[in-house]
């Protein structure tokens, strides 16, 4: 073992990762080579300094709470629309959604991959916006104030007609990302629950087969609805009940008056 070999193996030596033969050889070299002995001593001091004095930065409690809330609670969550029993009002809301806007809520195995990745991305974008230092880049004074704010910040004009109401007030907006493209994020609320409407260019994405259909799914405890209107895609995400989210989706999908 020459000096270069000894330098290379000093860390293993300190951590007891050298075999017995290697240890013997290294110790013999250190006792015969003052220079390598100095290097070994300096390595000891460096380890001491790093282990005892280098500042440590544990995650904040706020970050831990956010992460714990985001991890999927179950390995294979069941879709909420498969399990819920609609109350009469919610059933009417959903019927109106179907009758007025035509799109069909569907979920087919052959489209599962495309829908799943879009749903996952929508939830991640929702979380990214909410967890950023300033979730709202523009506070709402109404849709007429939020929509123009996006001009010059996006390469498309988001088409959103629902201005918010007492049940779902519009709080503001921010620029987000959906996969590889910029997106307009409109933040509404339902009681204390934030709801993100993410609007993005629809081209180049793998969409479920039915044009203008609505994909609805739950993901990590969030209800998600995704649909396409012309050149734009829309994703609606929140941790509110799926039926409430469907009633909000109906407002976006209703023809402009």
């Amino acid at each position, binding site marked *: 073992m020459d000096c270069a070999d000894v330098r*290379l193996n000093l860390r293993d030596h300190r951590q007891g990762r050298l075999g017995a033969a290697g240890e013997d050889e290294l110790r013999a070299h250190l006792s015969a080579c003052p220079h390598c002995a100095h290097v070994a001593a300096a390595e000891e001091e*460096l380890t001491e300094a790093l282990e005892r004095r280098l500042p440590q930065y544990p*995650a904040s409690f706020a970050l831990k709470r*956010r992460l714990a809330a985001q991890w999927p609670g*179950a390995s294979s969550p069941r879709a909420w629309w498969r399990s819920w029993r609609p109350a009469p009002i919610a059933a009417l809301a959903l019927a109106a959604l179907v009758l007025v806007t035509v799109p069909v809520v569907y979920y087919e195995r052959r489209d599962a991959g495309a829908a799943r990745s879009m749903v996952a991305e929508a939830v991640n974008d929702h979380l990214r916006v909410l967890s950023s230092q300033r979730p709202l880049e523009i506070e709402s004074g109404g849709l007429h104030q939020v929509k123009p704010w996006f001009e010059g910040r996006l390469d498309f004009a988001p088409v959103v007609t629902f201005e918010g109401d007492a049940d779902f007030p519009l709080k503001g907006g921010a620029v987000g990302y959906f996969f590889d493209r910029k997106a307009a994020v409109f933040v509404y609320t339902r009681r204390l629950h934030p709801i993100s409407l993410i609007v993005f260019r629809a081209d180049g994405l793998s969409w479920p087969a039915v044009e203008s259909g609505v994909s609805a799914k739950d993901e990590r405890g969030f209800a998600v609805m995704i649909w396409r209107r012309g050149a734009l895609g829309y994703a609606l995400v929140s941790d509110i009940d799926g039926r409430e989210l469907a009633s909000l989706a109906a407002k976006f999908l209703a023809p402009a008056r």
Partner: protein
Amino acid sequence: MSAMANEALAYVDALHNLARHLTGNQEDAEDLVQETYARAFRAERQFTPGTNLKAWLFRILRNTFVSSYRRRRRDPTVGGLDPLDAESAGALDQAWLRNDVELDRLRKVVAEEIEAALMTLSEDARTVILLDLEGLNELEVSEVLGCPVGTVKSRLSRARAALRLKLRDYAR
């Protein structure tokens, strides 16, 4: 919450510590850790149960940093300097370790000086030093960095030699 989630979240302090030393500030570190877990969520099914979850998460964090954060970063100096090659480090060691006074100085460097010296190293050098401190063995570090085990050994040796030399400047 699943067992995997519990285990993954148990590593958040270690991940954040590396993220903080890579990005140099709290806000970017939190964003990096957040994005790391978001990617881990998406790729959960790609993880093989029973394999090393900690190394898997560190790999995602480093790849996220390299692919996203480093590209966006405005300050070109944050990347730091490359560690010295072994030959140069060896030559400088001779001057640095000429007597015990120098070792004494190394013993007296304070936390801020150690951190400042560490931050002058390249991101790769910082990463390998911190992963080693974190207790990852060479095989695990090689999984994180995507390089052979032998390369980890030489990178670690060079990075630590470079750090010792940087500390010489502070320990006066």
